[in-house]
């Protein structure tokens, strides 16, 4: 019951999805769309579980007066405030995403600056890492260095000001060798995902049950 039923559910769900792909007629035709809707609904409940786990972990830290409890309090407050303004927006405007909704205030002045700054911060660390990693030790390392420099210079006005070679070379690198290797890696990863999916459906891979 604890292992056989989940294995059966996994097999049947995956099996019907594959059948609906090859048999686009009733009763299988609409099955893929229906299962995707169900998937979105179940994922929504899983999200609730995840937020609950985050909430409990930080609440525990506050109750036990552990180090960083004030930061945990800020996390919980921001989480609760976001949820409350989301609900207010839904009740008052019919959608939390209405431009007048207080939820959009949190999004515009909270999430956007935090997210953009967090990613902008990475610019410094990527640049610092590249200073250490980009050494022309051998031929392939030199290729890495040269293509990175060409792409960086080719994408800014100063590159074109130095020479028209940089924007043209940048475009060629992105469209031909970069695309070729990326495509090779992606095809390999997709084939790997197919084989892993088969292992899951056939019950060979069961780690998700532990």
């Amino acid at each position: 019951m604890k292992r056989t039923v989940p294995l059966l559910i996994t097999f049947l769900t995956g099996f019907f999805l594959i059948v609906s792909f090859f048999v686009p007629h009733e009763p299988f035709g609409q099955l893929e769309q229906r299962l995707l809707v169900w998937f979105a609904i179940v994922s929504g409940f899983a999200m609730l579980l995840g937020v609950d786990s985050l909430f409990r972990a930080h609440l525990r830290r506050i109750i036990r007066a552990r180090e960083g409890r004030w930061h945990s309090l800020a996390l919980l407050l921001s989480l609760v405030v976001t949820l409350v303004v989301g609900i207010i927006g839904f009740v008052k405007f019919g959608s939390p995403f209405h431009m007048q909704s207080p939820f959009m205030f949190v999004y515009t002045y909270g999430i956007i600056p935090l997210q953009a700054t967090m990613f902008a911060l990475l610019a410094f660390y990527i640049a610092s890492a590249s200073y250490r990693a980009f050494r022309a030790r051998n031929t392939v390392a030199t290729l890495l260095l040269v293509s990175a420099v060409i792409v960086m210079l080719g994408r800014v006005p100063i590159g074109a000001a130095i020479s028209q070679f940089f924007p043209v070379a940048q475009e060629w690198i992105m469209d031909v060798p970069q695309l070729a290797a990326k495509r090779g890696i992606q095809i390999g990863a997709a084939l790997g995902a197919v084989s892993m999916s088969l292992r899951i459906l056939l019950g060979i891979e069961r780690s998700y049950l532990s």
Partner: protein
Amino acid sequence: MGSTTMLIGTWLAGFLTLAIFSFLYKDNPVYKLAEHIYVGVSAGYWLIYVAFFDVYPMLIQGFQNETGLEKWILLVPGALGLIMLSRWFPKTAWLSRWPIAFTVGVGAGLGITANLQGYVMPQMQATLLPVTGWNIVSLNNVILTVGVITTILYFYFSKPHKGALGWMARVGIVFIMVSFGASFGYTLMARISLLIGRLYFLLSDLLHVID
């Protein structure tokens, strides 16, 4: 939003931006505060997003608007979702494997059909382009095809990389290194673009130093 609200919002955004940038000096309590706020608002945002765009229209409104079998069959995902919450009770926590198994099944099913139809086949189709003569387009098509094949062969580890396979793997690593370098440059420029955006916000919207 009123002008006072926008002013408060701008100062709040300015504080949060500077708090995150303070990490450049060193890890400090103000950065940690902003980091925790980020986690809190993000978790709240995504929960509201999923509830509003997925659960509410698909389950609740669907149940209200549909009729017959279409209405009652929605009880299945609703029940699976509620069973997912059985993890809150240790005695019934094992039941949550059922909805997890369902989501894994959907993922695995799509992993086969969507990957093959939406990924492998179109990518192969886009790779095997015609060679129409001695021109630059044809040359690029040949380079693209050689690059894709040799990159895949580089990751083929079932045979030692010797002889023809070794030679092709060496060509593959050339493409891979050029690709990694280009991806690095592309990512760095995207991050710098974000950095310019944040600095512009600080100097323009917050401090009005520049227009």
